[in-house]
């Protein structure tokens, strides 16, 4: 396996104590089993050697198409799933090596907001119980104190606190997503993974929730890993952006730089593929041929070579490492653009 030790050290560009979460060579394979005895016949390489350092207080946007491993990566970062290989350092400690008690303590600081505002809330819980559940588990608070905190949280996320004795189905999609956000921030976490947190929402509601997330970040000093496929949303909210393809990070850059001139051909294709809400500017579009190959059997060499419009012989043979191409700009490509 390709090691990319240099990548991570330089990616910081800041002193180590400004790093909140660090992923070192994170790898997650899911076994493919077959037959009566569940013989393992192969592996889906969902995340394959990802190195990433997320700074305190930043929003790191992670983009890519479905099946590229971005959600799995987010879950491994929180140890909601175990890693096949690699380390996740949170405040200097490898959270995949600590005991259950320690992990439980750490869960207060790391939270997740899910995509589906319908599936992520228990329909048999009252809203006050959904938001209050983390408090009941982690804090030694009386019922009265929990209720006061629930009211405070609901007001913070822009919900009418007098509706806390209702069930989730009585709320709209956008309001339900606010409930999920209130639950995530209940314990004053440091780090939140927002996994497609606004993707299921209509545009007019989406902008309300984006504003809320940015307000909370300012007021509570949160660090976000913002996983999304809507590139315009990621551009708006993120300080830095990582692009994933077939389990690998192919580009990492400051948001402005990435959107102005992507280095990796896949980033360029992804940016050009998005229909822009304007009739004036018709830009040149790179239409990729074919589909994303199966992560169970990724192509040899550069994983993007089967669809890359600029493919060369070297790309078919050698896998390009994630390298620094310019200050703060990382790309895994033998022949970067620009």
């Amino acid at each position, binding site marked *: 396996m390709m090691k990319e030790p240099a990548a991570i050290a330089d990616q910081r560009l800041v002193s180590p104590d400004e790093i909140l979460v660090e992923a070192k060579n994170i790898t997650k394979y899911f076994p493919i089993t077959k037959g009566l005895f569940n013989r393992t016949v192969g592996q889906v390489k969902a995340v394959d050697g990802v190195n990433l350092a997320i700074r305190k207080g930043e929003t790191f946007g992670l983009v890519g*198409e*479905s099946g590229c491993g971005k959600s799995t990566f987010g879950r491994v970062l929180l140890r909601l799933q175990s890693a096949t290989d690699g380390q996740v350092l949170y405040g200097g400690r490898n959270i995949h090596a600590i005991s259950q008690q320690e992990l439980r303590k750490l869960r207060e600081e790391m939270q997740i907001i899910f995509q589906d505002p319908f599936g992520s809330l228990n329909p048999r819980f009252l809203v006050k119980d959904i938001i209050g559940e983390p408090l009941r588990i982690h804090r030694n608070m009386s019922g009265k104190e929990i209720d006061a905190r629930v009211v405070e949280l609901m007001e913070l996320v822009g919900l009418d606190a007098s509706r806390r004795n209702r069930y989730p189905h009585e709320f*709209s999609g*956008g*309001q339900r997503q606010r409930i999920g956000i209130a639950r995530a921030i209940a314990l004053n976490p440091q780090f939140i993974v927002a996994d497609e947190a606004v993707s299921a929402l*209509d*545009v*007019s*509601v*989406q*902008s*309300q929730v*984006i*504003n809320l997330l*940015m307000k909370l970040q300012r007021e509570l000093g949160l660090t976000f890993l913002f996983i999304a*496929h809507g*590139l*315009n*949303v990621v*551009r*708006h*909210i993120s300080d830095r952006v990582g692009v994933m393809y077939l389990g690998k990070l192919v580009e990492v850059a400051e*948001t402005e730089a990435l*959107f102005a001139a992507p280095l990796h051909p896949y980033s360029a*294709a*992804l940016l*050009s*593929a*998005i*229909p*822009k*809400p*304007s*009739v*004036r500017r018709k830009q040149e*579009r790179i*239409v*990729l*041929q074919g*589909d*994303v190959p199966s992560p169970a059997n990724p192509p040899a060499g550069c994983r993007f070579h089967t669809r890359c419009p600029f493919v060369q012989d070297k790309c078919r043979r050698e896998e390009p490492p994630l390298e620094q191409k310019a200050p703060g700009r990382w790309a895994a490509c033998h022949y970067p653009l620009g």
Partner: protein
Amino acid sequence: MAENLLEIRKLTAGFATEHGLVKATDEISISIGKGQTVCLVGESGSGKSVTSLAIMRLIEYAGGMILDGGIHFHGEDLTAKKQEEMRSIRGDRIAMIFQDPMSSLNPVFTVGEQIAESLRLHQEKSPGEAMKQAIELLRLVGIPAPEIRAKQYPHELSGGMCQRVVIAIALACRPELLIADEPTTALDVTVQAQILDLLRNLQEELGMSILLITHDMGVAAEMADRIAVMYAGAIVEEGSAIDIFDQPSHPYTVGLLQSIPGFEGERGGELYTIRGTIPPLGQLPSGCRFHPRCPHAMDICRSQEPPDFLISGQHRAACWLFEDKPVWSGTNERGGKR
């Protein structure tokens, strides 16, 4: 005045519920010229899909009914036809593509058989001849090795491929009108770009008209000659794509466009939001249905529903802000390509 291919006049369709009759579309009028692409945009619950089901007269099978108004296809009123007569029009002269390609294909028939079915039914081709033509259609929609693919089942194809098959089925009888209901929403952006390209090329080749239903203003900007914006069951603004994007007039359209984070310019700031949420159908406010969320709401908006005012040429908006303009006559002249 040349005749439009499809002329929808004051169509009201809805569902009988335990709370009484709910109007999902409320006196909507749209016309589609030959070879034109008209986009129906709006958020979830705005009545876009009900409109398409009504045109196909499939709404009766979905538990709804057409309450009032006419749907004139080549001058014939589809609302007056019997279902037996509709059966020879559906799939032959008007075809439809649905959002989820995986679930609109039958899993127990090969894709070749599913394309051939339409040809056997409508054009009474022999099975052998129909299959031969099915393979040609697969080639037309850009599926490599169509002879092999025709013998495969839907689960053996990717989402993008399945959508191409669905398009091939829809195009089998060379329809004059193709209704595409969110055809790319379930697909990744790079695959979406392929499918939109395909639809545009096929339209040029076959000269058909397209009614494209989407929630994505970017897709509408890319595809549409004309755009109709729907809100809570009514068309609040309609005009050419250039009218809508360069001179959005209804406060809802303006708000919708402003709340989309952009691909250039400032980022990280507060996004524009439309306050509140879409009212549930059946609980529409009095007067203008948008007034509780409208930043310009006036007294008249609360009491009286605005008619369509003609802003310029063929650009109309249902908003009292344009009271000084003439009231729209109710039909469009046949509009050209953009």
